[in-house]
């Protein structure tokens, strides 16, 4: 964030330093100059190029873009499941090197354990982290109630529909009360109606359980409906093409999709995604 001075010329060095510190306190996740390259048969492939993004506490961020734009790679970087080739990621102001228990993850597939009932599936992270059994159980029951699965605790996952399975996997991601929820196209495998329904349900959960959410999708409407800010990404190499503040009032409704404002947002996103317009960074 240079304002025209180079660092050693800054007139108020202390002020500059403290504002930098202030920014780090306010932000939940800070991504600075992150690149990710993968080795492939034809050489090194740039999956992400020079990504800068600051995600605020309790912010709902959606990452949207076509396949190959590196949105899932970025999510994995935030989850510390992979390491950046260059650049740093800060989590609560600390450099992120290993996975932190302060993160819950939801994938496209619910990947529930077939040999466990719904309740025990939700409890899996609590078991691994060695959390208090009685408290975790109570919280699991509360979360299942929250997503409308009260009474299904003892069912086997295979008895549930895809939408219900995904609700269980959301509960599993929330059981250890992480402050960050990472969602990798969580509703992409569901039919359109279930998808819409779950989107609104997620916003309701987000209202009661305040979390910082990073939500990956390739559906532009979904990205706008859910987000505080939409991060539009473009492919080859994957980079942030535009960051869009969504100023639609909350709670969001289905009707908003037909407002001129919504259309304006989606046009802007389409523009940068499809024409690969020059990377406009934050």
């Amino acid at each position, binding site marked *: 964030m240079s304002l025209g001075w180079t660092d050693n010329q800054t007139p108020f060095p202390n002020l500059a330093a403290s504002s930098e510190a202030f920014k780090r306190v306010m932000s939940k996740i800070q991504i600075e100059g992150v690149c990710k390259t993968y080795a492939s048969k034809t050489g090194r492939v740039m999956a992400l190029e020079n990504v800068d993004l600051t995600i605020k506490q309790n912010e709902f961020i959606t990452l949207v873009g076509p396949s190959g734009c590196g949105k899932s790679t970025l999510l*994995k970087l935030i*989850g*510390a*499941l992979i390491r950046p080739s260059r650049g740093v990621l800060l989590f609560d102001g600390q450099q992120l090197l*290993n*996975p932190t*228990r302060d*993160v819950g*993850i939801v*994938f*496209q*597939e619910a*990947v529930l*354990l*077939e*040999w466990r009932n719904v309740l025990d599936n939700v409890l*899996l*992270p609590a*078991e*691994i*982290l060695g959390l208090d059994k009685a408290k975790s159980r109570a919280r699991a029951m509360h979360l299942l109630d929250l997503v*409308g*699965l*009260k009474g*299904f605790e003892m069912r*086997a996952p*295979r*008895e*549930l*529909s895809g*939408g*219900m399975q995904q609700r269980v996997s959301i509960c599993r991601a929330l059981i*250890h009360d992480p402050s960050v929820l990472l969602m*990798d196209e969580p509703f992409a495998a569901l039919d359109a109606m*279930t998808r819409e*329904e779950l989107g609104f*349900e997620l916003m309701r959960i987000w209202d009661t359980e305040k979390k910082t959410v990073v939500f990956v999708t390739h559906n532009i409407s979904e990205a706008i409906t859910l987000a505080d800010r939409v991060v539009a990404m473009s492919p080859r190499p994957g980079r942030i093409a535009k960051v869009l503040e969504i100023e639609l009032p909350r709670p969001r409704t289905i009707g908003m999709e037909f407002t001129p404002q919504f259309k304006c947002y989606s046009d802007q996103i389409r523009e940068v995604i499809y024409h690969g317009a020059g990377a406009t960074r934050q």
Partner: protein
Amino acid sequence: MTTDATVLPEEDESLEPASSSVKAIVGSTLTFIAMVVLWEVLVVQLKIPGWMLPSPSAIADAMIDWRSELFGHFMVTLYESLVGFVLAIIISIPLAVAVVYSPILQNTIYPILLAFQSMPKVAIAPLLALWIGFGTLPKIIIVFLVCFFPIVVATATGLTAVPASLMDLIRSLSASQTQTFIKIRFPTAMPHIFVGLKIAITFAVIGAVIGEFVGSENGLGYLILVSTSQSRTPLAFGALVLLTVMSILLYYGIAFVERIVVPWAPRN
């Protein structure tokens, strides 16, 4: 509160396959009876000599006459099959775990296992007889050898069948290797292991018979060899019937254990 309306009603799901499986059982039983009757009629009408192809009734007579001998030989073959099979389980599963967890073992042991598997077991049998003699031990070793490979492969496949996203989830929680193995990998492998066990158990009886053919003093394989050489064909057929029954019972025994241990496994 909204909930997807599609909770599969269990009755509907289980009713139809049940009635169709009853139909299947009735159908195959009738077909079997028809074949036996046809066999009986043809043998009698065409006057086929009993030493060449005995009629079903002649086989039944021989089985009743020789029931105590048949029972003794049955138990010997069953014993060889089961001991070899259990031995294969005890050694194969830990070995598969070691292979999956150690890339070095994977690169060194796996090719050797494959070479062993490619070796025809019938050809090893005479060598085992030469080295260990004609007791039950060489038969148990052959059973072990034929059962071993399918179980190792199935277990190794199962242990690596955990979906990548589930592994990511487990890693994000910094789960230990032990937790990952006990809570995720091994249960995921269980249905695969049972597929391997079901293949292995059918090989087990074949392995025992091969061992008995090469050299022994008892067992149903030995009985077949001796009775055919003495033209007591109905008795040989009786032994064959018992071998088939044994194989089927062992297979369904494993399938029964599977239903109890891994009720979530897909049914075929």
